Protein backbone atom coordinates (compact mmCIF):
# COMPACT_ATOMS: atom_id res chain seq x y z
CA UNK A 1 0.00 0.00 0.00
CA UNK A 2 1.55 3.27 -1.11
CA UNK A 3 1.22 6.42 0.94
CA UNK A 4 -0.63 9.18 -0.91
CA UNK A 5 1.66 11.75 -2.50
CA UNK A 6 2.07 15.03 -0.70
CA UNK A 7 0.83 18.08 -2.60
CA UNK A 8 2.74 21.35 -2.85
CA UNK A 9 0.18 23.05 -0.63
CA UNK A 10 0.44 20.34 1.99
CA UNK A 11 4.22 20.65 1.94
CA UNK A 12 4.02 24.41 2.40
CA UNK A 13 1.70 23.99 5.39
CA UNK A 14 3.81 21.29 7.07
CA UNK A 15 7.14 22.99 6.43
CA UNK A 16 7.53 24.29 9.99
CA UNK A 17 6.82 20.84 11.43
CA UNK A 18 9.48 19.52 9.05
CA UNK A 19 12.03 22.14 10.11
CA UNK A 20 11.13 21.60 13.78
CA UNK A 21 11.60 17.85 13.41
CA UNK A 22 8.06 17.15 14.60
CA UNK A 23 6.65 15.49 11.47
CA UNK A 24 5.60 11.87 11.92
CA UNK A 25 7.92 9.44 10.16
CA UNK A 26 5.49 8.66 7.33
CA UNK A 27 4.76 12.34 6.69
CA UNK A 28 8.45 13.08 6.75
CA UNK A 29 8.95 10.41 4.09
CA UNK A 30 6.15 11.91 1.96
CA UNK A 31 7.61 15.39 2.47
CA UNK A 32 11.07 14.37 1.36
CA UNK A 33 9.77 12.33 -1.57
CA UNK A 34 7.83 15.34 -2.82
CA UNK A 35 10.82 17.59 -2.35
CA UNK A 36 12.90 15.23 -4.44
CA UNK A 37 10.68 15.67 -7.49
CA UNK A 38 9.49 19.28 -7.06
CA UNK A 39 11.96 22.12 -7.72
CA UNK A 40 9.35 24.75 -6.80
CA UNK A 41 8.96 23.29 -3.32
CA UNK A 42 12.74 23.01 -2.96
CA UNK A 43 12.88 26.71 -3.80
CA UNK A 44 10.16 27.45 -1.25
CA UNK A 45 11.98 25.48 1.45
CA UNK A 46 15.20 27.34 0.68
CA UNK A 47 13.31 30.65 0.98
CA UNK A 48 11.92 29.65 4.37
CA UNK A 49 15.43 28.78 5.54
CA UNK A 50 16.71 32.12 4.22
CA UNK A 51 13.86 33.90 6.04
CA UNK A 52 14.79 32.23 9.34
CA UNK A 53 18.48 32.99 8.79
CA UNK A 54 17.85 36.68 8.01
CA UNK A 55 15.57 37.03 11.04
CA UNK A 56 18.38 35.55 13.11
CA UNK A 57 20.69 38.41 12.11
CA UNK A 58 18.39 40.99 13.76
CA UNK A 59 19.63 42.20 17.10
CA UNK A 60 17.38 42.41 20.09
CA UNK A 61 17.07 46.09 20.76
CA UNK A 62 18.70 47.96 23.59
CA UNK A 63 16.76 49.46 26.44
CA UNK A 64 16.34 53.20 26.61
CA UNK A 65 18.78 54.67 29.17
CA UNK A 66 15.83 56.11 31.11
CA UNK A 67 14.10 52.76 31.51
CA UNK A 68 17.36 50.99 32.34
CA UNK A 69 17.92 53.59 35.07
CA UNK A 70 14.41 52.96 36.39
CA UNK A 71 15.16 49.23 36.73
CA UNK A 72 18.47 49.96 38.39
CA UNK A 73 16.74 52.26 40.90
CA UNK A 74 14.26 49.48 41.64
CA UNK A 75 17.18 47.12 42.24
CA UNK A 76 18.88 49.56 44.62
CA UNK A 77 15.61 50.05 46.49
CA UNK A 78 15.31 46.27 46.91
CA UNK A 79 18.92 45.98 48.07
CA UNK A 80 18.48 48.67 50.72
CA UNK A 81 15.61 46.64 52.18
CA UNK A 82 17.77 43.53 52.45
CA UNK A 83 19.35 42.58 55.78
CA UNK A 84 23.08 43.26 55.77
CA UNK A 85 25.15 40.17 55.13
CA UNK A 86 26.79 38.90 58.31
CA UNK A 87 30.21 40.50 58.83
CA UNK A 88 33.12 38.24 58.07
CA UNK A 89 35.34 37.06 60.92
Amino acid at each position, binding site marked *: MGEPDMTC*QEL*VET*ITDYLEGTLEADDRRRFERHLHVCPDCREYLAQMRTTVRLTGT*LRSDDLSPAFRKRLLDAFRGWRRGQPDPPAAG
Partner: protein
Amino acid sequence: VPADADAELLAPLRAGDEAAFCALVDRHAGAMLRTATAVTGSRAAAEEAVQDTWIAVLRNLHRFEGRSTFRTWVFRILVNRARTLATREGRTLPFSALSGSGPEEGPALSPAQFDAAGGWAIRPASWAGLPEDRLLARESMDLLRAAIEALPPAQRTVLRLRDVEGWSAEEVCAALQLTPGNQRVLLHRARTGIRTRLDEYLA
Protein backbone atom coordinates in the same frame (compact mmCIF):
# COMPACT_ATOMS: atom_id res chain seq x y z
CA VAL B 1 18.31 20.50 33.30
CA PRO B 2 18.74 22.76 30.28
CA ALA B 3 22.03 24.57 29.84
CA ASP B 4 21.50 28.01 31.31
CA ALA B 5 23.91 30.79 30.46
CA ASP B 6 22.44 32.94 33.23
CA ALA B 7 23.05 30.42 36.01
CA GLU B 8 26.44 31.75 37.08
CA LEU B 9 24.98 35.23 37.68
CA LEU B 10 22.30 34.08 40.08
CA ALA B 11 24.41 33.64 43.20
CA PRO B 12 25.94 37.13 42.86
CA LEU B 13 22.46 38.53 42.15
CA ARG B 14 21.11 36.94 45.33
CA ALA B 15 23.97 38.58 47.23
CA GLY B 16 22.93 41.99 45.86
CA ASP B 17 25.62 42.37 43.19
CA GLU B 18 24.69 45.27 40.93
CA ALA B 19 26.89 44.19 38.02
CA ALA B 20 25.09 40.83 37.91
CA PHE B 21 21.74 42.60 37.89
CA CYS B 22 22.82 44.92 35.06
CA ALA B 23 24.14 42.00 33.00
CA LEU B 24 20.83 40.14 33.33
CA VAL B 25 18.80 43.26 32.56
CA ASP B 26 20.89 44.00 29.46
CA ARG B 27 20.47 40.41 28.34
CA HIS B 28 16.71 40.11 28.81
CA ALA B 29 14.87 43.34 29.50
CA GLY B 30 14.58 44.35 25.83
CA ALA B 31 12.83 41.11 24.90
CA MET B 32 10.76 41.36 28.09
CA LEU B 33 9.57 44.84 27.16
CA ARG B 34 8.58 43.67 23.68
CA THR B 35 6.75 40.65 25.03
CA ALA B 36 4.93 42.66 27.68
CA THR B 37 3.97 45.27 25.09
CA ALA B 38 2.49 42.52 22.94
CA VAL B 39 0.52 41.15 25.89
CA THR B 40 -0.76 44.47 27.25
CA GLY B 41 -0.93 46.51 24.06
CA SER B 42 0.46 49.44 26.04
CA ARG B 43 4.03 50.63 26.43
CA ALA B 44 3.38 52.14 29.88
CA ALA B 45 1.76 48.97 31.21
CA ALA B 46 4.58 46.94 29.70
CA GLU B 47 7.22 48.99 31.51
CA GLU B 48 5.34 48.55 34.76
CA ALA B 49 5.11 44.79 34.18
CA VAL B 50 8.84 44.53 33.47
CA GLN B 51 9.75 46.51 36.58
CA ASP B 52 7.35 44.47 38.76
CA THR B 53 8.84 41.29 37.31
CA TRP B 54 12.41 42.20 38.26
CA ILE B 55 11.29 43.00 41.79
CA ALA B 56 9.46 39.66 41.97
CA VAL B 57 12.57 37.93 40.62
CA LEU B 58 14.76 39.51 43.31
CA ARG B 59 12.32 38.60 46.07
CA ASN B 60 11.77 35.04 44.91
CA LEU B 61 15.17 34.12 43.56
CA HIS B 62 15.83 31.81 46.50
CA ARG B 63 12.85 29.75 45.34
CA PHE B 64 14.10 29.35 41.77
CA GLU B 65 15.17 25.73 41.53
CA GLY B 66 16.61 25.63 38.03
CA ARG B 67 13.98 23.23 36.73
CA SER B 68 13.54 25.58 33.79
CA THR B 69 16.04 28.07 32.44
CA PHE B 70 16.21 31.34 34.36
CA ARG B 71 14.82 33.33 31.41
CA THR B 72 11.85 30.96 31.09
CA TRP B 73 11.06 31.46 34.77
CA VAL B 74 11.39 35.24 34.42
CA PHE B 75 9.12 35.37 31.36
CA ARG B 76 6.46 33.28 33.09
CA ILE B 77 6.34 35.83 35.87
CA LEU B 78 6.31 38.61 33.28
CA VAL B 79 3.47 37.22 31.18
CA ASN B 80 1.30 36.62 34.28
CA ARG B 81 1.99 40.14 35.54
CA ALA B 82 1.33 41.70 32.12
CA ARG B 83 -1.98 39.86 31.84
CA THR B 84 -3.02 41.01 35.29
CA LEU B 85 -2.18 44.63 34.47
CA ALA B 86 -3.97 44.49 31.13
CA THR B 87 -7.06 43.02 32.74
CA ARG B 88 -6.99 45.61 35.51
CA GLU B 89 -6.86 48.40 32.93
CA GLY B 90 -9.85 46.84 31.22
CA ARG B 91 -7.96 46.09 28.05
CA THR B 92 -9.07 43.29 25.85
CA LEU B 93 -6.03 41.12 25.57
CA PRO B 94 -4.73 41.20 22.02
CA PHE B 95 -2.87 38.06 22.95
CA SER B 96 -5.91 35.81 22.89
CA ALA B 97 -3.98 33.06 21.13
CA LEU B 98 -1.73 32.87 24.15
CA SER B 99 -4.51 32.78 26.69
CA GLY B 100 -5.72 29.32 25.86
CA SER B 101 -7.87 29.61 22.76
CA GLY B 102 -6.45 28.16 19.57
CA PRO B 103 -4.46 30.14 17.07
CA GLU B 104 -5.96 31.21 13.78
CA GLU B 105 -7.41 28.50 11.58
CA GLY B 106 -6.81 27.85 7.91
CA PRO B 107 -3.74 27.75 5.70
CA ALA B 108 -0.90 30.16 6.41
CA LEU B 109 -0.10 30.76 2.76
CA SER B 110 -2.90 32.06 0.54
CA PRO B 111 -4.75 29.17 -1.17
CA ALA B 112 -4.79 31.39 -4.28
CA GLN B 113 -1.15 30.32 -4.76
CA PHE B 114 -2.32 26.77 -5.54
CA ASP B 115 -4.45 25.05 -8.15
CA ALA B 116 -7.35 22.74 -7.39
CA ALA B 117 -5.02 19.74 -7.09
CA GLY B 118 -2.82 21.51 -4.52
CA GLY B 119 0.04 22.21 -6.95
CA TRP B 120 1.60 25.62 -7.40
CA ALA B 121 -0.64 27.87 -9.53
CA ILE B 122 1.80 30.74 -9.09
CA ARG B 123 5.24 29.18 -8.92
CA PRO B 124 7.63 30.73 -6.39
CA ALA B 125 10.09 33.04 -8.10
CA SER B 126 13.68 32.07 -7.44
CA TRP B 127 15.70 33.85 -4.78
CA ALA B 128 18.77 31.86 -5.76
CA GLY B 129 20.23 34.63 -7.91
CA LEU B 130 20.02 37.21 -5.14
CA PRO B 131 23.42 38.23 -3.87
CA GLU B 132 23.95 38.04 -0.14
CA ASP B 133 24.56 41.79 0.11
CA ARG B 134 21.13 42.42 -1.40
CA LEU B 135 19.54 40.17 1.22
CA LEU B 136 21.43 41.84 4.03
CA ALA B 137 21.05 45.37 2.63
CA ARG B 138 19.66 47.91 5.03
CA GLU B 139 16.49 48.23 2.98
CA SER B 140 15.78 44.48 3.13
CA MET B 141 16.43 44.38 6.85
CA ASP B 142 14.17 47.40 7.43
CA LEU B 143 11.46 45.62 5.47
CA LEU B 144 11.98 42.49 7.53
CA ARG B 145 11.71 44.44 10.79
CA ALA B 146 8.53 46.14 9.57
CA ALA B 147 7.05 42.81 8.50
CA ILE B 148 7.69 41.39 11.98
CA GLU B 149 6.13 44.46 13.61
CA ALA B 150 3.03 44.03 11.44
CA LEU B 151 2.42 40.46 12.64
CA PRO B 152 -0.37 39.77 15.15
CA PRO B 153 1.06 40.05 18.70
CA ALA B 154 1.17 36.35 19.54
CA GLN B 155 2.88 35.43 16.26
CA ARG B 156 5.31 38.32 16.66
CA THR B 157 6.24 37.29 20.18
CA VAL B 158 6.84 33.65 19.31
CA LEU B 159 8.84 34.53 16.20
CA ARG B 160 11.04 37.01 18.05
CA LEU B 161 11.80 34.63 20.91
CA ARG B 162 12.51 31.72 18.58
CA ASP B 163 14.23 33.34 15.60
CA VAL B 164 15.70 36.59 16.95
CA GLU B 165 16.49 35.60 20.55
CA GLY B 166 17.25 31.98 19.65
CA TRP B 167 15.12 30.29 22.29
CA SER B 168 14.16 26.61 22.01
CA ALA B 169 10.56 25.58 21.34
CA GLU B 170 10.39 24.13 24.87
CA GLU B 171 11.46 27.39 26.47
CA VAL B 172 8.92 29.41 24.50
CA CYS B 173 6.11 27.00 25.40
CA ALA B 174 7.01 27.17 29.08
CA ALA B 175 7.48 30.95 29.16
CA LEU B 176 4.31 31.85 27.25
CA GLN B 177 2.27 28.90 28.53
CA LEU B 178 1.58 27.56 25.08
CA THR B 179 1.04 23.98 24.00
CA PRO B 180 3.73 22.68 21.62
CA GLY B 181 1.11 22.56 18.86
CA ASN B 182 0.04 26.19 19.37
CA GLN B 183 3.63 27.34 19.50
CA ARG B 184 4.33 25.64 16.18
CA VAL B 185 1.21 27.05 14.51
CA LEU B 186 2.10 30.58 15.62
CA LEU B 187 5.69 30.16 14.45
CA HIS B 188 4.52 28.70 11.15
CA ARG B 189 2.09 31.52 10.43
CA ALA B 190 4.66 34.11 11.42
CA ARG B 191 7.48 32.67 9.28
CA THR B 192 5.14 32.13 6.33
CA GLY B 193 3.92 35.72 6.57
CA ILE B 194 7.44 37.12 6.76
CA ARG B 195 8.58 35.05 3.77
CA THR B 196 5.68 36.37 1.73
CA ARG B 197 6.57 39.97 2.55
CA LEU B 198 10.23 39.38 1.72
CA ASP B 199 9.22 37.66 -1.52
CA GLU B 200 7.06 40.61 -2.59
CA TYR B 201 10.08 42.82 -2.09
CA LEU B 202 12.90 40.62 -3.37
CA ALA B 203 11.46 38.60 -6.23
